[in-house]
C-alpha cells in the first residue's frame, strides 16, 4: 500500500503493491494473479497443440504423404499429446480457476501457501520451456507418443530424455498445487463452512488434489527410471537386460489413469456450479455428488490395468481390472442423473455457460459409454490401438474437460475481468464448437471399428471418406474456437462492465465485487447454510457489523445460525 490506496478499494488487477508493472505479476503471491498467469501460459500451449492437431488432420486428408514426412508425423502426434495432456488438460481448470476461485468460494483471503503457489507456476513454466527446447535439440522431438512406452522410448534416438524431464518437472508443479489445495480446504474454510456446505467445485478440487499428491510421484519415479535406463542401462524395463516392459506400463498407468480424473473431476465440479445457477434451483443430491467425486477418485486409482488388456498381462489381472473399470460407471452415473434432475422443474435461463454444460453432458455421455466397450475384455481386443480409442479419449478429455474449460471461461469471465461478453456470439460459437467436435471425432469411432489403427501415417483408400469428413470437422471446430476467443478478447478490451452477480449465482464468489479486491473480503464471512440456496441468504458478509458477537461466544456459528 505504498501509494496510499487501500487493497480493499481497488481490484486485484489495479492494485499496485511493492512491485509494479510486469514484476507486479511475476512476483505476485496473490492467488488470483497466479491463476491468470496460468491462464496465459495454458492458452498459449493450447493454441500450439491445437495447431499440431490441425496439421495432423491435414496430413490425413489423403493416403501417403500430404504435407509432412512420416518421422515428422510421429513427432507431431507425440507433441500434440504431451502438450495437450501435461500443459493444458491437467492444469487448466485446477491451476487457473481452482487458484482463482477456491479461496474465494471457501471464504479465505488466499491459499494456505501463497509463495509455494507462485513457485508451482514457475515449475510449470520451466517444464513447459523444457518441452519446447526438446523440439529443437538432441536429435529432434520425441517420437514415442505421450505414453513413452518402453522399450522404444529407451532406444529412440530422438530427444526423449528432455521431454520426459519436462513431464517430470511439470509433475512437481502439479503435486505442489495439489498439496496447497488440500491444506487450504482443510485449514482455511470460513466460519460455518462445514464440509457439506462447501461448493461442489471445491469438492471436485479436493478429490483432484489428493490424486495429484498421491499419484503424480509414481510418474515422476517412472520417468526418472526411463532416463536411468537410457543413460546407464540399469535394466528395470528393458527385456534385453532382464527388465519387464509391462512393469513400465503398470507404473505409467498407475499415474496416467488417475490423471484422467485429475482432468475431469474439476470440470464436473464446475458443471455442479453452473447448473443450479441457471436452473435457479438447489442442486439435486448435493451429498451424493460430493461423495461421488471421492468415489470416482478412489475407484479411478484401481483401474489402470484396462489400458493393458492386450499387453500380455495375466488373465486374472485382466478380469479384476475389467470388473473395477465397470464400477467407475456408478459414481459417474450418480453425477449425470443428479445433474439432469437438477434441471427438472427448474426455472431455466439459457445462457452461454449452460449451453456448454448441456453439450458437455451429451458428449461426455458418449465418451463414457464407449469406455464400457473398451472396459469389456472381448470387445476391447477388437478395437485396441485403433481410432476407436482415439475417439473415446477425445470425447472424454476434450469433450469433457475441454468443453467444460470453455464453459468455465464463460461462467467466471465476468468475475475474473469485470467485463461482460456478447452472449449471442458466445452461444453461436458454442454451437459451432459442438457441431465441429462431433464431425471431427465421431468418424473416428466408425474408422476404429472398421480397423483403422491409431498413430499410422498412411491408410487404405477405404478410410479416406471418413478422414476427409473428420478433417472438415477440424476446420469447423477451429473456426468455433477462434470465434469464441475473439468474442472474449473483444469483451476484455471493450466489453461493458460486469455487475457483481450477473448470473444470479449463490456461492461466495458472487458476493464480492467483479473483479475482486486484493484480499477478496473486507471481513471474513460467516456461512449459515448450503451453497446453492436461492430463496434466502446463507452468508453473513460483514459479521462484525451485523451483530455476531465479537468476543467470547461459546456457541458455534452453526448453532448461532439455527437460533
Amino acid at each position, binding site marked *: 500500500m505504498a501509494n496510499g490506496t487501500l487493497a480493499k478499494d481497488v481490484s486485484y488487477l489495479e492494485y499496485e503493491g511493492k512491485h509494479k508493472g510486469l514484476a507486479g505479476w511475476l512476483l505476485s*503471491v*496473490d492467488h488470483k494473479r497466479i491463476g491468470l498467469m496460468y491462464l496465459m501460459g495454458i492458452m498459449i500451449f493450447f493454441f500450439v497443440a491445437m495447431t499440431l492437431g490441425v496439421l495432423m488432420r491435414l496430413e490425413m486428408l489423403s493416403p501417403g504423404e500430404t504435407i509432412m514426412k512420416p518421422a515428422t508425423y510421429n513427432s507431431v502426434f507425440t507433441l500434440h499429446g504431451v502438450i495437450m495432456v501435461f500443459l493444458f488438460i491437467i492444469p487448466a481448470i485446477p491451476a487457473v480457476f481452482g487458484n482463482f476461485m477456491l479461496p474465494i468460494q471457501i471464504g*479465505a*483471503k*488466499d491459499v*494456505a501457501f*501463497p509463495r509455494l503457489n507462485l513457485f508451482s507456476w514457475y515449475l510449470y513454466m520451466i517444464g513447459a520451456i523444457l518441452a519446447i527446447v526438446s523440439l529443437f535439440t538432441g536429435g529432434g522431438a520425441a517420437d514415442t507418443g505421450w505414453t513413452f512406452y518402453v522399450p522404444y522410448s529407451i532406444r529412440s534416438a530422438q530427444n526423449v530424455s528432455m521431454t520426459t524431464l519436462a513431464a517430470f518437472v511439470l509433475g512437481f508443479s502439479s503435486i505442489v498445487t495439489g498439496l496447497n489445495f488440500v491444506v487450504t480446504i*482443510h*485449514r*482455511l*474454510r*470460513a*466460519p*460455518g*463452512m*462445514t*464440509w457439506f*456446505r462447501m461448493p461442489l467445485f471445491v469438492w471436485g478440487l479436493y478429490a483432484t488434489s489428493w490424486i495429484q499428491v*498421491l499419484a503424480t510421484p*509414481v510418474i515422476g519415479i517412472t520417468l526418472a527410471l526411463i532416463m536411468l535406463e537410457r543413460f546407464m542401462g540399469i535394466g528395470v524395463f528393458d527385456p534385453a537386460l532382464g527388465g*519387464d516392459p*509391462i*512393469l513400465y506400463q*503398470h507404473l505409467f498407468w*498407475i499415474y496416467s489413469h488417475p490423471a484422467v480424473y485429475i482432468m475431469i473431476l474439476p470440470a464436473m465440479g464446475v458443471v455442479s456450479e453452473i447448473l443450479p445457477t441457471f436452473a435457479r434451483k438447489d442442486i439435486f443430491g448435493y451429498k451424493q455428488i460430493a461423495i461421488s467425486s471421492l468415489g470416482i477418485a478412489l475407484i479411478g*486409482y*484401481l483401474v489402470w*490395468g484396462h489400458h493393458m488388456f492386450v499387453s*500380455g*498381462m*495375466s*488373465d*486374472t*489381472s485382466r478380469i*479384476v*481390472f475389467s470388473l473395477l473399470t465397470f464400477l467407475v460407471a456408478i459414481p459417474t452415473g450418480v453425477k449425470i442423473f443428479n445433474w439432469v434432475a437438477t434441471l427438472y422443474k427448474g426455472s431455466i435461463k439459457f445462457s452461454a455457460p449452460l449451453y456448454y454444460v448441456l453439450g458437455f453432458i451429451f458428449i461426455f455421455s458418449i465418451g463414457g459409454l464407449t469406455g464400457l466397450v473398451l472396459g469389456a475384455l472381448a470387445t476391447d481386443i477388437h478395437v485396441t490401438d485403433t481410432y476407436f480409442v482415439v475417439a473415446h479419449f477425445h470425447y472424454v478429455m476434450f469433450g469433457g474437460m475441454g468443453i467444460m474449460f470453455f464453459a468455465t471461461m464463460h461462467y467466471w469471465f465476468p468475475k475474473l475481468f469485470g467485463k461482460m461478453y456478447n452472449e449471442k456470439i458466445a452461444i453461436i460459437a458454442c454451437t459451432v464448437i459442438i457441431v465441429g467436435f462431433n464431425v471431427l471425432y465421431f468418424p473416428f469411432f466408425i474408422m476404429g471399428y472398421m480397423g483403422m489403427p491409431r498413430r499410422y501415417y498412411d491408410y487404405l483408400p477405404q478410410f479416406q471418406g471418413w478422414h476427409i469428413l473428420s478433417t472438415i470437422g477440424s476446420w469447423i471446430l477451429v473456426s468455433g474456437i477462434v470465434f469464441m476467443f475473439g468474442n472474449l478478447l473483444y469483451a476484455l478490451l471493450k466489453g461493458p462492465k460486469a455487475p457483481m452477480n450477473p448470473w444470479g449465482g449463490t456461492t461466495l464468489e458472487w458476493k464480492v465485487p467483479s473483479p475482486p479486491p486484493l*484480499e477478496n473480503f473486507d*471481513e*471474513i464471512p*460467516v*456461512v449459515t447454510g448450503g451453497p446453492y440456496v436461492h430463496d434466502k441468504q446463507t452468508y453473513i458478509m460483514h*459479521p*462484525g457489523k451485523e451483530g*455476531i*458477537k*465479537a*468476543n*467470547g*461466544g*461459546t*456457541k*458455534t*456459528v452453526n448453532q*448461532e445460525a439455527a437460533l
Partner: protein
Amino acid sequence: MSEQIHTGEMTAGQAHAAAHGEAEHSHAGAHAGGHMVGYGTYFMVWLGLVALTAVTVTIAGIQLGSLTLLTAMLIASVKTALVGYHFMHIKYDNKIIKVFILVCLVIFLTFWILTFSDLSFR
C-alpha cells in the same frame, strides 16, 4: 495475505477475531515441535534397524522361492515404520496426520497388490 484463518467449526468470537487480523491458533494446531526424545530411544531404534538389515541380508541367501520378495518387503516395511514413527516423529503427531499417512500407505499397498496380481499369475 497476512493472517490466515480458521476451520468450519470455529466460534463466532473466533471468526470475528480472525476477520480483524488477530493471530489465530486453531485447536488442531498442536504439533510435535517441543517434544523431547532421549538418545536412548534413538539408539535402540538404530540398533533395531541394523538388526533388521542383517536379517534381510541373511534371508537373501536362503532359497525361499516366491516368498523371497514378500519377506524382503515385510522387513523393509517394519524398518520404514520404525523410521517414520520415531525419527520422523509420527508417534507424536496429530491424529489427522496419522490418518493421512495411513491412507497413503493403504493406497500404496493397493498399487502393489494389483501390480503383483499380474506378475504372480502371468
